């Protein structure tokens, strides 16, 4: 930038550019400061959570707040896993989430292939129906779905939480379809000449080329399932079958005086898988958010 300005032939232009760039850099500086303050404000709750999670019982209720505890007590994490059977909940959550991720990715990618590549009468109408289900509040189907699962004898099993994911998720289908449409049709034709049927095109052309989109769908399914609360709350009755969110809530309701340090420790542990996935896949994640938010 600076060299550009100095090599400009006319001094008038230099002055103009110079003044403009000074104003511009002041503007950027002010923006950067505001953004940084906002980022700190965003991080404070998390920092406070971490700080609370390593405090002794006494220091939790100290006013004014001591940010760095006089003694870092890591045993709160161990206590938290004893107050509630955290490890069992973690295994349960992992079990459900893994099966939901597989179900969502497999079923949604098949359905998206149909909508992106195969012609059939009424297809556009069906796609419109699919899009409109994204706007349908889940509460409308909440009661009947519960009654169906009850009739099937599935209450207090993981089936109500897992099985629906094998019937494709509208958001995922939409996202994958948009992605599949960007894959050139010539590739399909080439595969057809090589003797591939539709299954071959799906398996050998579409799937290998849409790994980023499939990853996005998998990640969103992971977050939704890992964090979901209302479903497990409704369907699971046996304590040993609880997932982490339901278990954490149990923490709150079962204790007269809330052990905040343990609760923050358990919350940190609950968040760790999400944060790890987020840091490794944030590009994918952010692109997915943009893609679904900007209506393709």
């Amino acid at each position, binding site marked *: 930038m600076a060299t550009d300005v100095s090599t400009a032939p006319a001094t008038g232009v230099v002055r103009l550019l110079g003044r403009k760039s000074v104003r511009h850099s002041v503007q950027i500086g002010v923006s950067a400061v505001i953004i940084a303050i906002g980022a700190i404000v965003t991080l404070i709750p998390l920092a406070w959570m971490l700080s609370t999670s390593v405090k002794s019982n006494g220091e939790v209720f100290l006013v004014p707040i001591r940010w760095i505890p006089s003694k870092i007590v890591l045993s709160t994490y161990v206590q938290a896993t004893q107050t509630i059977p955290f490890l069992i909940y973690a295994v349960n959550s992992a079990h459900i989430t893994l099966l939901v991720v597989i179900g969502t990715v497999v079923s949604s990618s098949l359905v998206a292939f149909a909508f992106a590549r195969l012609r059939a009468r009424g297809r556009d109408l069906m796609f419109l129906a699919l899009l409109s289900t994204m706007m349908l509040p889940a509460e409308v189907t909440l009661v009947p779905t519960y009654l169906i699962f009850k009739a099937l004898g599935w209450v207090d099993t993981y089936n109500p939480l897992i099985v629906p994911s094998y019937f494709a998720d509208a958001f995922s289908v939409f996202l994958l379809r948009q992605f599949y449409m960007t894959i050139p049709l010539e590739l399909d034709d080439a595969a057809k000449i090589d003797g591939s049927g539709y299954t071959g095109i799906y398996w050998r052309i579409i799937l290998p080329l849409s790994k980023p989109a499939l990853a996005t769908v998998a990640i969103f399914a992971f977050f939704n399932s890992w964090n979901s609360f209302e479903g497990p709350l409704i369907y699971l009755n046996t304590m040993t079958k609880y997932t982490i969110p339901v278990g954490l809530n149990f923490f709150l309701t079962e204790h007269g005086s809330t052990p905040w340090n343990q609760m923050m420790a358990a*919350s940190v542990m609950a968040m760790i898988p999400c944060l790890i996935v987020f840091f490794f896949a944030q590009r994918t994640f952010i692109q997915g958010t943009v893609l679904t938010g900007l209506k393709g």
Partner: protein
Amino acid sequence: MARIANARSSPRRGSLARREELAFYLFASPWLIGFIIWIAGPMVISLLLSFADYDIITPPSFSGLDNYVQLLTNDDLVWQSLKVTGLYSLGAIPLGLITAFVLALLMNQKVRGIAGFRTIYYMPAVIAGVPVALLWMWILNPDFGILNNALAFVGITGPKWLFSESWVIPAFVLMSLWTIGAPMIIYLAGLQGIPQHLYEAAELDGAGPWSKFTHVTIPMITPIIFFNAIIGVIGSFQIFTPAYVMTNGGPANASLFYGLYLYNNAFRYFKMGYASALAWLMFFIILALSLLVVRSSPYWVYYEGGRGDGGI
């Protein structure tokens, strides 16, 4: 020869199309079956149930319009939950929209380290649910929470937040502002998608920064604002987890969100018919509000190329 080929090709093409159609139905079958089992079927059942009394133990009995009459004329809690949801929406949606948009504008200025900031702002959105609810209960704790301690630091005695009938909704609004990372990223992408030549053209016409903002940026970004507004309305009606975990509707029903009241009717009082009627009322309110936003959109949403038919 040519005739034979012709005669053969026509039914063959027909069978090819039929094969493709068959393949479509096979590939789409998970969704098609799912649509019937998890969407269409339950919607029909829900509609029927809304005209019945059903407590799960005794078989459902037809009760005509009783549920609807009850919820519209004889249930103060319906109005209370609509009020709570409405007040929260009026606070959280515009505030969230403005904050997210301003942040996106700031971040769109080639500030250094933008990727890092983006990560930080987005982070709260990925840890949604119960852990966040617990964290905010602790933040909002009147005596030991960080918020009131910070307020005390500047000489303000903080309110009781979740324990106060008048401060519980502002507390939820405040909490919602912590997770504006997702809409912020959507706005940022929208801003980055505005063609540079529009700004250059405006500059040639002598536009300053402010009129470039009002005449280029704002019109180009309205479709996204529009999308986020609809999503926001639907989202407020579905708030459940924070309300259930943090206050369970209290104090004195001051945070009885609609989604929570519906859950209570279904799974605490086992009034399945009444809960279904509540769900349909919610469905029509959301539909009406969405239509209102869509209908009003020609007045304030700008679609490039002049198409006014911007569905989702």
